[in-house]
């Protein structure tokens, strides 16, 4: 995910550096690609 597609919930996180944004984007991608499918398919 690119910096541009950070969830809008972080719109006011102006103090984040580009590196911070990458970390948040990575967490979001992990949530979308790994956590949600895992929760829905087998555990929740």
């Amino acid at each position: 995910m690119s910096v541009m597609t950070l969830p809008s919930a972080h719109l006011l996180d102006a103090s984040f550096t580009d590196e911070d944004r990458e970390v948040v984007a990575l967490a979001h991608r992990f949530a979308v690609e790994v956590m949600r499918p895992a929760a829905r398919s087998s555990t929740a």
Partner: protein
Amino acid sequence: MTDPAAVIAPGSRLWDVLDRYDATGLGEASTGDDGSDPVARARLSAAVSEELSWGDVGLAITCGMTRFAAPWIQMSGNNELIERYCSPGVRTIGCWALTEPDHGSDTVSFTHDSFRDPQIKANCVARRDGDEYVISGQKSGWVSLGSIADVITLFCTVDQDRGHSGGGVFVVPSDLPGVERPRPTDKLGQRPLNQGEVVFHDVRVPADHMVIGPDVYPMALEGMLTQGNIGMSTLFVGVARAAYDLALDYARERVQGGRPIIEHQSVQSRIFDMFRRVEAARALTRRVVESQAIAPVPFQYAVAAKTFVTQTAFDVSSAALQIFGGNGLTREYPIEKVLRDARASMIEDGCNEVLGLVAAVRL
């Protein structure tokens, strides 16, 4: 729904999630001490927590608990333990064992007289025997990750004359002889998060495994609850936001009266109310998170955040389910799961109303 024993069975999806989480390096990226501004790091960590719990809060807690045991183990100063559980690349799942079958709210009510009442007898006690402690009794089926933790951070009674205030904190490897972990608990929400009782049959640990003694136990418990309540706040902002996002997406798709329901004014105002609540919950959370990065946050502030945010997560997910109409009640849509997850949070790490009573003494 998946059987709680199947959730944690070898080869289950849970272990794949943990492997993939480790591979992301997210744990270190947001919490590692790299000399940068602690407030900025704390803010980043809160944002990461929010994202992960937006994905699934039960799994987010599970991932987070791979970092729970290390500080307690370090406190023991026991090199064997440190090498075994804290070496780079070793995954150590931790758990916090406080709640007992007969004592839930009792164990967190450290500002109340009952906490010091020796007539209130604990279910789990450690007694000194030479160079060792012998731990006997039981912690309840509500210990998160109790069934799969490698190391148990055990809060239990040491000096029974002081009631629950006479506690100690122990690090207990879960493979020691006498540690028994019966079937995991089946529960309403946060089902990917394992919950399991732990029974101690005269478990012997060296004296250095007690890292907090009775004299400072109430203070340590207060610190732990403060930290835990701040952690809960960051997590359940993500749950509240997940509910809001799901409702917004659905309202844009679902057509009634010939147009998407988001174009109906009452739906718009309900969605905006959810947005407002999520923003307020995040703002309060960030306030305690950022303060805690500089100096310990007083307990009452952490409780204000936890109780407010978890109540918000529940209110927003309930309002979101209403936006889904009948579809919201089915398992085909994810909102009913988010509502169940949020409901559990109002009891998790202390019932909200009890936490409020314990904190009120500090006002």
